[in-house]
Protein backbone atom coordinates (compact mmCIF):
# COMPACT_ATOMS: atom_id res chain seq x y z
CA UNK A 1 0.00 0.00 0.00
CA UNK A 2 1.30 3.47 -0.93
CA UNK A 3 1.23 6.30 1.51
CA UNK A 4 0.51 9.83 0.28
CA UNK A 5 4.12 10.74 0.90
CA UNK A 6 5.31 8.08 -1.53
CA UNK A 7 2.89 8.99 -4.28
CA UNK A 8 3.93 12.66 -4.31
CA UNK A 9 7.62 12.33 -4.83
CA UNK A 10 7.59 14.51 -7.93
CA UNK A 11 8.96 12.11 -10.51
CA UNK A 12 8.81 13.15 -14.12
CA UNK A 13 8.19 10.15 -16.31
CA UNK A 14 9.42 10.00 -19.85
CA UNK A 15 6.25 9.40 -21.77
CA UNK A 16 7.89 9.70 -25.15
CA UNK A 17 7.07 13.31 -25.93
CA UNK A 18 8.90 14.54 -29.01
CA UNK A 19 9.48 18.19 -29.69
CA UNK A 20 9.00 19.58 -33.18
CA UNK A 21 12.25 19.26 -35.06
CA UNK A 22 11.15 20.25 -38.55
CA UNK A 23 12.00 23.54 -40.25
CA UNK A 24 10.70 26.72 -38.60
CA UNK A 25 9.28 29.25 -41.02
CA UNK A 26 10.23 32.24 -38.93
CA UNK A 27 9.23 35.79 -38.42
CA UNK A 28 8.86 36.84 -42.01
CA UNK A 29 6.54 33.96 -42.80
CA UNK A 30 4.40 34.75 -39.74
CA UNK A 31 4.13 38.38 -40.75
CA UNK A 32 3.18 37.45 -44.29
CA UNK A 33 0.54 35.04 -43.01
CA UNK A 34 -0.90 37.79 -40.84
CA UNK A 35 -0.99 40.08 -43.85
CA UNK A 36 -2.72 37.59 -46.12
CA UNK A 37 -5.17 36.60 -43.42
CA UNK A 38 -5.92 40.27 -42.69
CA UNK A 39 -6.49 41.08 -46.35
CA UNK A 40 -8.84 38.14 -46.73
CA UNK A 41 -10.67 39.08 -43.53
CA UNK A 42 -11.14 42.63 -44.84
CA UNK A 43 -13.28 41.21 -47.64
CA UNK A 44 -14.84 38.51 -45.50
CA UNK A 45 -13.10 35.74 -47.47
CA UNK A 46 -12.75 32.54 -45.49
CA UNK A 47 -15.56 33.64 -43.21
CA UNK A 48 -19.29 33.10 -43.21
CA UNK A 49 -21.44 34.30 -46.07
CA UNK A 50 -22.95 36.99 -43.88
CA UNK A 51 -19.64 38.75 -43.32
CA UNK A 52 -19.00 38.87 -47.08
CA UNK A 53 -22.20 40.81 -47.78
CA UNK A 54 -21.11 44.23 -46.63
CA UNK A 55 -17.58 44.43 -48.12
CA UNK A 56 -18.81 43.25 -51.48
CA UNK A 57 -21.84 45.52 -51.38
CA UNK A 58 -19.53 48.49 -50.88
CA UNK A 59 -17.16 47.15 -53.52
CA UNK A 60 -20.06 46.94 -55.96
CA UNK A 61 -21.25 50.39 -54.92
CA UNK A 62 -17.86 51.81 -55.88
CA UNK A 63 -17.48 49.98 -59.18
CA UNK A 64 -21.03 49.99 -60.58
CA UNK A 65 -21.32 53.79 -61.04
CA UNK A 66 -18.28 53.67 -63.33
CA UNK A 67 -20.13 51.24 -65.60
CA UNK A 68 -23.12 53.58 -65.60
CA UNK A 69 -20.87 56.54 -66.46
CA UNK A 70 -19.26 54.64 -69.33
CA UNK A 71 -22.66 53.56 -70.64
CA UNK A 72 -23.95 57.15 -70.53
CA UNK A 73 -20.84 58.43 -72.29
CA UNK A 74 -21.15 55.79 -75.00
CA UNK A 75 -24.86 56.29 -75.66
CA UNK A 76 -25.00 60.06 -75.35
CA UNK A 77 -21.87 60.40 -77.46
CA UNK A 78 -20.12 62.74 -75.01
CA UNK A 79 -16.77 64.16 -76.05
CA UNK A 80 -15.12 63.73 -72.65
CA UNK A 81 -15.64 61.98 -69.33
CA UNK A 82 -18.28 63.75 -67.23
CA UNK A 83 -16.21 63.11 -64.13
CA UNK A 84 -12.47 63.27 -63.58
CA UNK A 85 -10.71 60.39 -61.85
CA UNK A 86 -9.97 62.36 -58.70
CA UNK A 87 -13.52 63.75 -58.67
CA UNK A 88 -14.87 60.22 -58.77
CA UNK A 89 -12.92 59.41 -55.63
CA UNK A 90 -14.22 62.43 -53.76
CA UNK A 91 -17.84 61.72 -54.78
CA UNK A 92 -17.85 58.04 -53.93
CA UNK A 93 -15.13 58.13 -51.27
CA UNK A 94 -17.78 57.88 -48.56
CA UNK A 95 -18.21 54.21 -49.51
CA UNK A 96 -14.52 53.63 -48.88
CA UNK A 97 -14.95 55.37 -45.51
CA UNK A 98 -17.80 53.02 -44.60
CA UNK A 99 -15.62 50.10 -45.69
CA UNK A 100 -12.84 51.32 -43.42
CA UNK A 101 -15.22 51.86 -40.51
CA UNK A 102 -16.74 48.40 -40.94
CA UNK A 103 -13.58 46.41 -41.55
CA UNK A 104 -10.87 48.08 -39.45
CA UNK A 105 -12.51 46.78 -36.25
CA UNK A 106 -12.74 43.34 -37.89
CA UNK A 107 -8.95 43.39 -38.19
CA UNK A 108 -8.12 44.87 -34.79
CA UNK A 109 -10.91 44.66 -32.24
CA UNK A 110 -11.58 40.96 -32.62
CA UNK A 111 -8.04 39.94 -31.69
CA UNK A 112 -8.26 42.18 -28.63
CA UNK A 113 -11.65 40.89 -27.55
CA UNK A 114 -10.64 37.24 -27.71
CA UNK A 115 -7.27 37.95 -26.07
CA UNK A 116 -5.31 36.32 -28.85
CA UNK A 117 -2.84 39.17 -29.27
CA UNK A 118 -0.50 37.77 -26.57
CA UNK A 119 -0.56 34.48 -28.46
CA UNK A 120 0.62 36.23 -31.63
CA UNK A 121 3.36 37.99 -29.72
CA UNK A 122 4.58 34.74 -28.21
CA UNK A 123 5.61 33.72 -31.71
CA UNK A 124 8.56 35.16 -33.64
CA UNK A 125 6.43 37.99 -35.09
CA UNK A 126 6.95 41.10 -32.98
CA UNK A 127 4.54 43.88 -32.16
CA UNK A 128 5.99 45.98 -34.98
CA UNK A 129 5.40 43.12 -37.42
CA UNK A 130 1.84 42.68 -36.21
CA UNK A 131 0.95 46.34 -36.68
CA UNK A 132 2.78 46.50 -40.00
CA UNK A 133 0.95 43.43 -41.30
CA UNK A 134 -2.45 44.77 -40.25
CA UNK A 135 -1.66 48.17 -41.74
CA UNK A 136 -0.56 46.56 -44.99
CA UNK A 137 -3.77 44.47 -45.10
CA UNK A 138 -6.02 47.48 -44.63
CA UNK A 139 -3.98 49.56 -47.07
CA UNK A 140 -4.13 46.86 -49.73
CA UNK A 141 -7.85 46.33 -49.23
CA UNK A 142 -8.54 50.06 -49.61
CA UNK A 143 -6.25 50.27 -52.63
CA UNK A 144 -8.15 47.44 -54.34
CA UNK A 145 -11.39 49.22 -53.52
CA UNK A 146 -10.25 52.64 -54.76
CA UNK A 147 -8.15 51.78 -57.80
CA UNK A 148 -10.44 49.29 -59.50
CA UNK A 149 -13.14 51.89 -60.34
CA UNK A 150 -10.42 54.19 -61.69
CA UNK A 151 -9.08 51.45 -63.93
CA UNK A 152 -12.60 50.70 -65.16
CA UNK A 153 -13.10 54.40 -65.93
CA UNK A 154 -9.80 54.44 -67.81
CA UNK A 155 -10.80 51.37 -69.76
CA UNK A 156 -14.10 53.06 -70.60
CA UNK A 157 -12.29 56.17 -71.79
CA UNK A 158 -10.11 54.04 -74.02
CA UNK A 159 -13.13 52.18 -75.44
CA UNK A 160 -14.67 55.52 -76.33
CA UNK A 161 -11.33 56.45 -77.94
CA UNK A 162 -10.66 59.49 -75.80
CA UNK A 163 -7.10 60.93 -75.91
CA UNK A 164 -4.74 58.38 -74.39
CA UNK A 165 -2.07 60.67 -72.96
CA UNK A 166 -4.39 62.99 -71.11
CA UNK A 167 -6.41 60.14 -69.67
CA UNK A 168 -3.28 58.33 -68.56
CA UNK A 169 -2.03 61.45 -66.79
CA UNK A 170 -5.35 61.95 -65.03
CA UNK A 171 -5.49 58.27 -64.14
CA UNK A 172 -2.10 58.69 -62.46
CA UNK A 173 -3.44 61.72 -60.51
CA UNK A 174 -6.32 59.54 -59.38
CA UNK A 175 -3.96 56.76 -58.36
CA UNK A 176 -1.85 59.17 -56.30
CA UNK A 177 -5.00 60.40 -54.59
CA UNK A 178 -6.05 56.80 -53.95
CA UNK A 179 -2.68 56.02 -52.34
CA UNK A 180 -2.99 59.07 -50.08
CA UNK A 181 -6.55 58.19 -49.05
CA UNK A 182 -5.64 54.57 -48.42
CA UNK A 183 -2.57 55.46 -46.34
CA UNK A 184 -4.27 58.05 -44.17
CA UNK A 185 -7.52 56.15 -43.75
CA UNK A 186 -5.76 52.91 -42.81
CA UNK A 187 -3.60 54.64 -40.23
CA UNK A 188 -6.52 56.54 -38.67
CA UNK A 189 -8.95 53.62 -38.80
CA UNK A 190 -6.58 51.10 -37.28
CA UNK A 191 -5.53 53.49 -34.51
CA UNK A 192 -9.17 54.01 -33.49
CA UNK A 193 -10.10 50.34 -33.90
CA UNK A 194 -7.14 49.23 -31.80
CA UNK A 195 -8.27 51.47 -28.97
CA UNK A 196 -11.48 49.56 -28.29
CA UNK A 197 -12.34 45.86 -28.13
CA UNK A 198 -15.96 46.79 -28.91
CA UNK A 199 -16.62 46.52 -32.60
CA UNK A 200 -19.71 48.73 -32.66
CA UNK A 201 -18.00 51.52 -30.82
CA UNK A 202 -15.04 51.36 -33.18
CA UNK A 203 -17.25 51.56 -36.25
CA UNK A 204 -19.17 54.56 -34.96
CA UNK A 205 -16.01 56.32 -33.79
CA UNK A 206 -14.24 55.98 -37.15
CA UNK A 207 -17.25 57.01 -39.23
CA UNK A 208 -18.29 59.75 -36.81
CA UNK A 209 -14.77 61.13 -36.73
CA UNK A 210 -14.46 61.31 -40.50
CA UNK A 211 -17.99 62.65 -41.02
CA UNK A 212 -18.01 65.24 -38.29
CA UNK A 213 -14.59 66.67 -39.17
CA UNK A 214 -15.71 66.89 -42.78
CA UNK A 215 -18.90 68.79 -41.91
CA UNK A 216 -17.01 70.96 -39.47
CA UNK A 217 -14.45 71.91 -42.11
CA UNK A 218 -17.23 73.06 -44.45
CA UNK A 219 -18.86 75.15 -41.74
CA UNK A 220 -15.62 76.78 -40.63
CA UNK A 221 -14.89 77.50 -44.27
CA UNK A 222 -18.30 79.11 -44.63
CA UNK A 223 -17.72 81.13 -41.46
CA UNK A 224 -14.47 82.51 -42.78
CA UNK A 225 -16.09 83.63 -46.03
CA UNK A 226 -15.26 80.67 -48.28
CA UNK A 227 -18.67 80.63 -49.96
CA UNK A 228 -19.33 84.34 -50.31
CA UNK A 229 -19.46 85.98 -53.74
CA UNK A 230 -15.75 86.81 -53.51
CA UNK A 231 -14.37 83.71 -51.78
CA UNK A 232 -11.43 84.49 -49.56
CA UNK A 233 -8.46 82.27 -50.23
CA UNK A 234 -7.50 82.00 -46.58
CA UNK A 235 -10.78 80.22 -45.84
CA UNK A 236 -9.31 77.16 -47.55
CA UNK A 237 -7.20 76.55 -44.47
CA UNK A 238 -10.38 75.19 -42.84
CA UNK A 239 -9.95 72.08 -45.00
CA UNK A 240 -7.14 71.04 -42.66
CA UNK A 241 -9.77 70.11 -40.05
CA UNK A 242 -10.87 67.15 -42.12
CA UNK A 243 -8.40 64.46 -43.28
CA UNK A 244 -10.50 63.73 -46.36
CA UNK A 245 -10.71 67.35 -47.45
CA UNK A 246 -7.01 67.90 -46.80
CA UNK A 247 -6.12 65.20 -49.30
CA UNK A 248 -8.68 66.54 -51.78
CA UNK A 249 -7.30 70.07 -51.48
CA UNK A 250 -3.71 68.93 -51.89
CA UNK A 251 -4.46 66.79 -54.94
CA UNK A 252 -6.56 69.51 -56.58
CA UNK A 253 -3.82 72.09 -56.10
CA UNK A 254 -0.88 69.95 -57.17
CA UNK A 255 -2.53 68.45 -60.26
CA UNK A 256 -4.94 71.26 -61.11
CA UNK A 257 -7.91 68.90 -60.98
CA UNK A 258 -11.36 69.23 -59.43
CA UNK A 259 -13.12 71.25 -62.13
CA UNK A 260 -13.85 74.96 -61.97
CA UNK A 261 -16.35 74.98 -59.10
CA UNK A 262 -15.72 77.81 -56.70
CA UNK A 263 -16.43 75.52 -53.73
CA UNK A 264 -13.86 72.86 -54.58
CA UNK A 265 -11.15 71.98 -52.10
CA UNK A 266 -7.88 73.72 -52.87
CA UNK A 267 -4.70 74.09 -50.89
CA UNK A 268 -3.89 77.83 -50.70
CA UNK A 269 -0.62 78.56 -52.51
CA UNK A 270 2.75 76.86 -52.22
CA UNK A 271 2.72 77.19 -48.45
CA UNK A 272 -0.63 75.44 -48.49
CA UNK A 273 0.75 72.54 -50.48
CA UNK A 274 3.63 72.11 -48.06
CA UNK A 275 1.44 72.41 -44.97
CA UNK A 276 -1.22 70.06 -46.34
CA UNK A 277 1.41 67.48 -47.27
CA UNK A 278 3.01 67.84 -43.84
CA UNK A 279 -0.36 67.40 -42.11
CA UNK A 280 -1.09 64.24 -44.10
CA UNK A 281 2.34 62.79 -43.31
CA UNK A 282 2.10 63.73 -39.64
CA UNK A 283 -1.41 62.34 -39.24
CA UNK A 284 -0.48 59.08 -40.91
CA UNK A 285 2.78 58.65 -39.01
CA UNK A 286 1.22 59.80 -35.74
CA UNK A 287 -1.69 57.37 -35.96
CA UNK A 288 0.68 54.58 -36.89
CA UNK A 289 2.91 55.38 -33.93
CA UNK A 290 -0.13 55.49 -31.66
CA UNK A 291 -1.25 52.05 -32.85
CA UNK A 292 2.27 50.74 -32.26
CA UNK A 293 2.29 52.23 -28.78
CA UNK A 294 -1.06 50.70 -27.97
CA UNK A 295 0.40 47.22 -28.47
CA UNK A 296 3.38 47.82 -26.18
CA UNK A 297 1.30 46.38 -23.38
CA UNK A 298 -1.45 43.88 -24.18
Amino acid sequence: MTTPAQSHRGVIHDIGYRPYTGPRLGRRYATRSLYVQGLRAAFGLGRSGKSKVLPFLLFGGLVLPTMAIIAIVAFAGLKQMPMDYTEYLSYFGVLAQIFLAAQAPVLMSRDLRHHVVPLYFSRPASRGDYVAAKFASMFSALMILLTLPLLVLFLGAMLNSFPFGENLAHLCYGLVAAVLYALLYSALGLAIAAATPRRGFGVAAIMGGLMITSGLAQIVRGLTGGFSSVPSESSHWAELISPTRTIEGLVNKVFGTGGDNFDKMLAPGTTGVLVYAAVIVLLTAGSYALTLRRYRNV
Partner: protein
Amino acid sequence: MNTTVARLTARGLFGRRRILILLAVPVMLLVIAVIARNSAIDKLELAHSILGSLALGTLVPITGLITGTGVIATEIEDGSIVYLLSKPLPRWKIVTTKLAVAVGASWLLAALPTYLAGLILYGTADGIAAGYALGTLVAGTAYSALFLLLGVVTRHAVIAGLAYALIWESLIGNYVEGARTLSVQQWGLSLTKAIAADGAVTAPVGLTTAVWLLIVAAVGATALASVKLSGLTLNGEE
Protein backbone atom coordinates in the same frame (compact mmCIF):
# COMPACT_ATOMS: atom_id res chain seq x y z
CA MET B 1 -38.22 50.79 -16.03
CA ASN B 2 -35.90 48.83 -13.84
CA THR B 3 -33.36 50.95 -11.99
CA THR B 4 -30.71 48.26 -11.75
CA VAL B 5 -30.80 47.54 -15.45
CA ALA B 6 -30.79 51.27 -16.16
CA ARG B 7 -27.79 51.80 -13.91
CA LEU B 8 -25.81 48.97 -15.48
CA THR B 9 -26.71 50.14 -18.98
CA ALA B 10 -25.65 53.69 -18.25
CA ARG B 11 -22.38 52.42 -16.84
CA GLY B 12 -21.78 50.36 -19.97
CA LEU B 13 -22.45 53.39 -22.12
CA PHE B 14 -20.56 56.05 -20.20
CA GLY B 15 -18.13 54.08 -18.07
CA ARG B 16 -14.38 53.81 -18.43
CA ARG B 17 -13.83 57.31 -19.78
CA ARG B 18 -16.18 56.70 -22.72
CA ILE B 19 -18.18 59.70 -21.54
CA LEU B 20 -15.19 61.89 -22.36
CA ILE B 21 -15.15 60.72 -25.97
CA LEU B 22 -18.92 61.14 -26.22
CA LEU B 23 -18.75 64.62 -24.74
CA ALA B 24 -16.23 65.74 -27.35
CA VAL B 25 -19.04 66.00 -29.88
CA PRO B 26 -21.34 68.47 -28.03
CA VAL B 27 -18.37 70.48 -26.84
CA MET B 28 -17.29 70.91 -30.43
CA LEU B 29 -20.78 72.08 -31.39
CA LEU B 30 -20.68 74.72 -28.67
CA VAL B 31 -17.22 75.88 -29.71
CA ILE B 32 -18.44 76.30 -33.28
CA ALA B 33 -21.47 78.24 -32.05
CA VAL B 34 -19.24 80.62 -30.09
CA ILE B 35 -16.99 81.17 -33.11
CA ALA B 36 -19.98 81.65 -35.43
CA ARG B 37 -21.53 84.20 -33.06
CA ASN B 38 -18.80 86.68 -33.95
CA SER B 39 -19.06 86.10 -37.65
CA ALA B 40 -20.35 88.71 -40.07
CA ILE B 41 -22.43 86.24 -42.08
CA ASP B 42 -26.23 86.22 -41.99
CA LYS B 43 -27.14 84.68 -38.63
CA LEU B 44 -30.22 82.83 -39.83
CA GLU B 45 -28.31 81.08 -42.57
CA LEU B 46 -25.61 80.19 -40.07
CA ALA B 47 -28.19 78.83 -37.65
CA HIS B 48 -29.59 76.62 -40.39
CA SER B 49 -26.21 75.25 -41.38
CA ILE B 50 -24.96 74.74 -37.80
CA LEU B 51 -28.17 73.68 -36.04
CA GLY B 52 -29.79 72.10 -39.06
CA SER B 53 -27.04 70.42 -41.09
CA LEU B 54 -24.42 69.83 -38.43
CA ALA B 55 -26.53 69.21 -35.29
CA LEU B 56 -29.76 67.72 -36.61
CA GLY B 57 -28.25 66.26 -39.76
CA THR B 58 -25.01 64.75 -38.46
CA LEU B 59 -24.58 64.87 -34.69
CA VAL B 60 -28.03 63.56 -33.77
CA PRO B 61 -27.87 60.48 -36.05
CA ILE B 62 -24.32 59.69 -34.90
CA THR B 63 -25.20 60.15 -31.22
CA GLY B 64 -28.41 58.17 -31.67
CA LEU B 65 -26.40 55.46 -33.38
CA ILE B 66 -23.85 55.24 -30.57
CA THR B 67 -26.40 55.34 -27.75
CA GLY B 68 -29.10 53.26 -29.47
CA THR B 69 -26.80 50.41 -30.42
CA GLY B 70 -24.46 50.95 -27.48
CA VAL B 71 -27.10 50.10 -24.87
CA ILE B 72 -27.89 46.66 -26.27
CA ALA B 73 -25.86 45.61 -29.35
CA THR B 74 -22.54 45.51 -27.50
CA GLU B 75 -24.04 43.26 -24.84
CA ILE B 76 -25.53 40.95 -27.45
CA GLU B 77 -22.25 40.85 -29.29
CA ASP B 78 -20.10 39.86 -26.33
CA GLY B 79 -22.77 37.48 -25.07
CA SER B 80 -23.19 39.09 -21.66
CA ILE B 81 -26.86 39.73 -22.46
CA VAL B 82 -27.63 36.14 -21.31
CA TYR B 83 -27.09 37.15 -17.68
CA LEU B 84 -29.73 39.81 -18.11
CA LEU B 85 -32.14 37.67 -20.12
CA SER B 86 -31.98 34.88 -17.54
CA LYS B 87 -33.39 37.18 -14.85
CA PRO B 88 -37.14 37.07 -14.14
CA LEU B 89 -37.77 40.32 -16.00
CA PRO B 90 -40.18 40.68 -18.90
CA ARG B 91 -38.25 41.29 -22.09
CA TRP B 92 -40.26 44.37 -23.00
CA LYS B 93 -39.20 45.89 -19.73
CA ILE B 94 -35.55 45.34 -20.59
CA VAL B 95 -36.12 47.01 -23.96
CA THR B 96 -37.98 50.01 -22.53
CA THR B 97 -35.40 50.50 -19.78
CA LYS B 98 -32.51 50.40 -22.20
CA LEU B 99 -34.39 52.67 -24.56
CA ALA B 100 -34.96 55.17 -21.75
CA VAL B 101 -31.22 55.27 -21.07
CA ALA B 102 -30.44 55.70 -24.78
CA VAL B 103 -33.02 58.44 -25.18
CA GLY B 104 -31.77 60.23 -22.06
CA ALA B 105 -28.22 60.02 -23.34
CA SER B 106 -29.18 61.39 -26.75
CA TRP B 107 -31.02 64.28 -25.11
CA LEU B 108 -28.04 65.02 -22.93
CA LEU B 109 -25.48 64.70 -25.73
CA ALA B 110 -27.43 66.13 -28.68
CA ALA B 111 -30.62 68.01 -27.82
CA LEU B 112 -29.34 70.03 -24.86
CA PRO B 113 -26.13 71.12 -26.64
CA THR B 114 -28.19 72.06 -29.69
CA TYR B 115 -30.40 74.27 -27.56
CA LEU B 116 -27.38 75.90 -25.93
CA ALA B 117 -25.69 76.35 -29.29
CA GLY B 118 -28.89 77.93 -30.61
CA LEU B 119 -29.02 80.33 -27.67
CA ILE B 120 -25.37 81.29 -28.09
CA LEU B 121 -25.75 81.75 -31.82
CA TYR B 122 -29.17 83.26 -32.26
CA GLY B 123 -30.62 84.03 -28.84
CA THR B 124 -34.29 83.34 -28.25
CA ALA B 125 -35.39 85.25 -31.35
CA ASP B 126 -37.83 83.60 -33.80
CA GLY B 127 -37.93 80.47 -31.63
CA ILE B 128 -35.03 79.10 -33.65
CA ALA B 129 -33.14 77.70 -30.67
CA ALA B 130 -36.23 76.15 -29.08
CA GLY B 131 -37.42 74.83 -32.43
CA TYR B 132 -34.18 73.07 -33.24
CA ALA B 133 -33.98 71.82 -29.65
CA LEU B 134 -37.41 70.19 -30.01
CA GLY B 135 -36.48 68.85 -33.44
CA THR B 136 -33.30 67.21 -32.13
CA LEU B 137 -35.19 65.98 -29.06
CA VAL B 138 -37.78 64.03 -31.03
CA ALA B 139 -35.36 63.01 -33.77
CA GLY B 140 -32.97 61.74 -31.08
CA THR B 141 -35.79 59.71 -29.52
CA ALA B 142 -36.82 58.18 -32.83
CA TYR B 143 -33.21 57.43 -33.84
CA SER B 144 -32.56 55.77 -30.47
CA ALA B 145 -35.63 53.52 -30.82
CA LEU B 146 -34.82 52.62 -34.44
CA PHE B 147 -31.16 51.94 -33.81
CA LEU B 148 -31.96 49.92 -30.70
CA LEU B 149 -34.19 47.75 -32.87
CA LEU B 150 -31.35 47.40 -35.39
CA GLY B 151 -29.07 46.37 -32.54
CA VAL B 152 -31.42 43.55 -31.60
CA VAL B 153 -32.10 42.43 -35.16
CA THR B 154 -28.67 42.46 -36.80
CA ARG B 155 -25.06 42.08 -35.78
CA HIS B 156 -24.14 44.86 -38.17
CA ALA B 157 -26.37 47.39 -36.48
CA VAL B 158 -23.94 50.30 -36.62
CA ILE B 159 -23.25 49.80 -40.31
CA ALA B 160 -26.94 49.40 -41.13
CA GLY B 161 -27.70 52.56 -39.16
CA LEU B 162 -24.93 54.45 -40.91
CA ALA B 163 -26.21 53.27 -44.26
CA TYR B 164 -29.64 54.61 -43.37
CA ALA B 165 -28.36 57.94 -42.06
CA LEU B 166 -25.74 58.50 -44.77
CA ILE B 167 -27.06 56.90 -47.88
CA TRP B 168 -30.82 57.17 -47.42
CA GLU B 169 -31.17 60.48 -45.60
CA SER B 170 -28.23 62.40 -46.99
CA LEU B 171 -27.49 61.00 -50.43
CA ILE B 172 -30.89 59.86 -51.68
CA GLY B 173 -32.86 62.39 -49.62
CA ASN B 174 -30.99 65.19 -51.38
CA TYR B 175 -32.10 64.09 -54.82
CA VAL B 176 -35.36 62.21 -54.40
CA GLU B 177 -38.23 64.18 -52.90
CA GLY B 178 -40.15 61.11 -51.75
CA ALA B 179 -37.25 59.81 -49.67
CA ARG B 180 -37.58 62.81 -47.39
CA THR B 181 -41.00 61.69 -46.20
CA LEU B 182 -39.33 58.64 -44.70
CA SER B 183 -36.49 60.47 -43.00
CA VAL B 184 -36.28 60.99 -39.24
CA GLN B 185 -34.24 64.12 -39.79
CA GLN B 186 -37.04 65.71 -41.84
CA TRP B 187 -39.67 64.79 -39.26
CA GLY B 188 -37.60 66.58 -36.64
CA LEU B 189 -37.35 69.55 -38.99
CA SER B 190 -41.14 69.68 -39.30
CA LEU B 191 -41.43 70.07 -35.54
CA THR B 192 -38.75 72.74 -35.64
CA LYS B 193 -40.82 74.59 -38.19
CA ALA B 194 -43.92 74.33 -35.98
CA ILE B 195 -42.12 76.03 -33.07
CA ALA B 196 -40.07 78.59 -34.98
CA ALA B 197 -41.52 81.85 -36.28
CA ASP B 198 -43.35 81.77 -39.61
CA GLY B 199 -41.04 81.51 -42.60
CA ALA B 200 -37.88 81.05 -40.53
CA VAL B 201 -37.56 77.33 -41.23
CA THR B 202 -38.67 75.33 -44.25
CA ALA B 203 -39.58 71.67 -43.88
CA PRO B 204 -40.63 69.37 -46.72
CA VAL B 205 -42.86 67.14 -44.55
CA GLY B 206 -46.18 68.31 -43.10
CA LEU B 207 -46.51 68.52 -39.32
CA THR B 208 -49.31 65.96 -38.88
CA THR B 209 -47.59 63.44 -41.13
CA ALA B 210 -44.33 63.97 -39.28
CA VAL B 211 -45.86 63.54 -35.83
CA TRP B 212 -47.72 60.38 -36.79
CA LEU B 213 -44.70 58.89 -38.54
CA LEU B 214 -42.52 59.72 -35.53
CA ILE B 215 -44.94 58.00 -33.15
CA VAL B 216 -45.34 54.99 -35.42
CA ALA B 217 -41.58 54.66 -35.92
CA ALA B 218 -40.69 55.02 -32.23
CA VAL B 219 -43.47 52.85 -30.79
CA GLY B 220 -43.29 50.31 -33.61
CA ALA B 221 -39.52 49.94 -33.30
CA THR B 222 -39.77 49.48 -29.53
CA ALA B 223 -42.53 46.88 -29.82
CA LEU B 224 -40.68 45.00 -32.54
CA ALA B 225 -37.46 45.11 -30.54
CA SER B 226 -39.31 43.55 -27.57
CA VAL B 227 -40.68 40.77 -29.75
CA LYS B 228 -37.29 40.15 -31.33
CA LEU B 229 -35.57 40.10 -27.94
CA SER B 230 -38.06 37.49 -26.71
CA GLY B 231 -36.89 35.08 -29.37
CA LEU B 232 -33.24 36.06 -29.45
CA THR B 233 -30.77 33.42 -30.54
CA LEU B 234 -27.17 34.04 -29.68
CA ASN B 235 -24.76 33.46 -32.52
CA GLY B 236 -21.08 32.89 -32.18
CA GLU B 237 -18.54 35.19 -33.72
CA GLU B 238 -18.60 35.03 -37.49
